[in-house]
């Protein structure tokens, strides 16, 4: 397997300790939890998505563990502006705040709360189970461009996280790039559901949710590959990454870094474990493999 040279990297305007970030929505509700993941070897962390108003999220069950993955419908629970205080102990750390809104104006408002408080923003234009937010906006290239422009205009490094639940993800990625995104994160969860045969109803309180975990890794690789063809800004690969070899594969598809989420279910120390396998002082520079599968 390819080994990479260790050390800090800069991706999409944000300086990271390594190529491995915590994905949004996983253990990102509190500053202490984010600090724990950084201490456990993550190169950066993305917070829970923060929106214009406090939200309690959907009624449970909010998550079900299935073969090869996890289906969730949390419903974007968040304390809104009060989240700023969670970040006080993380000043100077590579923290990316995931934000959402229903309009470009809401994106700008929420983005403004975190100016000077975080390394960058990740726009959630991709949550598949929150009406009026996330993928509801992220499937429309014109809205993606407008929302991206609204947040990016504040001068904070702005990443845009895309949904795979569209006919042509490259078109959405190109819209984010036109709006001024510094990087694209691909992908959010894949629309999914399960039904309890015992209770004859959908398991999730929201009925529908999004699938993450190993099962969607091939979907994510394909999306990253398509985006690399269509866009010239960096791509952060996300979806089912659970080994160092998965990281290398994502990079070969075109990712400059990766986000890891569901794999935390097996081991909270997954970042250090992957880093241990991935990095070697005799390793090569990641630039040598990013997108190499397109040759």
């Amino acid at each position, binding site marked *: 397997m390819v080994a990479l040279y260790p050390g800090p990297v800069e991706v999409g305007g944000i300086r990271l300790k390594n190529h491995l970030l915590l994905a949004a929505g996983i253990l990102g509700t509190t500053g202490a939890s984010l600090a724990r993941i950084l201490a456990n070897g993550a190169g950066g962390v993305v917070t829970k998505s923060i929106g214009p108003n406090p939200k309690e999220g959907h009624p449970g069950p909010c998550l*079900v563990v299935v073969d090869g993955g996890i289906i969730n419908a*949390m419903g974007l629970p968040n304390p809104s502006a009060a989240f700023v205080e969670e970040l006080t102990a993380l000043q100077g750390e590579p923290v990316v705040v995931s934000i959402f809104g229903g309009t470009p104006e809401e994106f700008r408002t929420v983005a403004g709360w975190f100016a000077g408080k975080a390394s960058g923003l990740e726009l959630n234009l991709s949550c598949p189970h929150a009406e009026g937010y996330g993928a509801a906006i992220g499937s429309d290239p014109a809205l993606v461009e407008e929302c991206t422009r609204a947040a990016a205009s504040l001068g904070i490094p702005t990443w845009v996280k895309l949904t795979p639940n569209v006919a042509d993800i490259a078109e959405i990625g190109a819209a984010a790039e036109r709006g001024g995104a510094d990087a694209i994160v691909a992908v959010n969860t894949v629309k999914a559901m399960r039904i309890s045969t015992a209770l004859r109803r959908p*398991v999730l309180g929201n009925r529908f949710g999004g699938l993450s975990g190993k099962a969607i890794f091939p979907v994510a690789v394909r999306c990253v590959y398509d985006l690399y063809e269509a866009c010239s800004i960096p791509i952060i690969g996300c979806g089912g990454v659970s080994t160092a070899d998965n990281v290398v594969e994502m990079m070969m598809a075109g990712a400059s870094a990766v986000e890891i989420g569901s794999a935390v279910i097996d081991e909270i120390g997954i970042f250090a474990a992957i880093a241990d396998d991935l990095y070697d002082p005799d390793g090569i520079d990641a630039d040598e493999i990013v997108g190499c599968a397109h040759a």
Partner: protein
Amino acid sequence: MHEQMPAGVTITEIVEETPSIRTFVFDREIAARPGQFVMVWVPGVDEIPMGLSSPSSITVQKVGDATTALFAKNAGDRIGIRGPYGNGFAVSGRTLAIGGGVGTSPLLPLVEAGQVDTFLLGARTASELLFAERIRRAAALMIATDDGTAGHHGFVTELVSRVDLADFEHVCVCGPEVMMAAVLAILDREGCAERGQFSINRYMKCGVGLCGSCCTDPHGLRVCRDGPVFSGDVLLESEFGRYARDASGSRHRV
């Protein structure tokens, strides 16, 4: 990790333990360690964490939407259960248990496994004392009620001074957070906080250590996965006894 779809279980019996607490017995045994919990799905309402009071029962107080809906259920109705989750209590020597109100429920499996020597049981009033007879059969029982209708007139924490803490290798505690924090303060004062095992309660969504809803300050420990039982020395200087986060992640005083 293997598939963990909720199991559909049928309620076989509902026992009124006290005027405010009921035990729901179901038709499946869940292999769990004392102090582990399950996620209980009340279809169409919500899913909530609940300690097991036996391999096939949960013991519940009506406090919110899901527990109110559960109280409206009858024998024969179906609910969903996933788990068991969390770490549970771990004892290997002489053990003191301290239970307050419905918090006595997750301590019962420890008692019935013969692992508790002395039990300090507290409730608001005599009729709200939970599992007193079952505990008395397996351990030395001391009782306190807030209104003095049974046992010591006052808080269960006041009974701690009537036992010799040096006699016990473990102190397992579950009850209202204010009561547990008072016990922790006593153990700390006596220099034995690390002997305490506190089963703590935080708002939970996923139950499997992923979503972060139940993370505590300052270590980011997850109540659902790293807990729900924490050693007293871990809880010193933490948010425990001071504040907790709600469903949105906003902090509130305990």
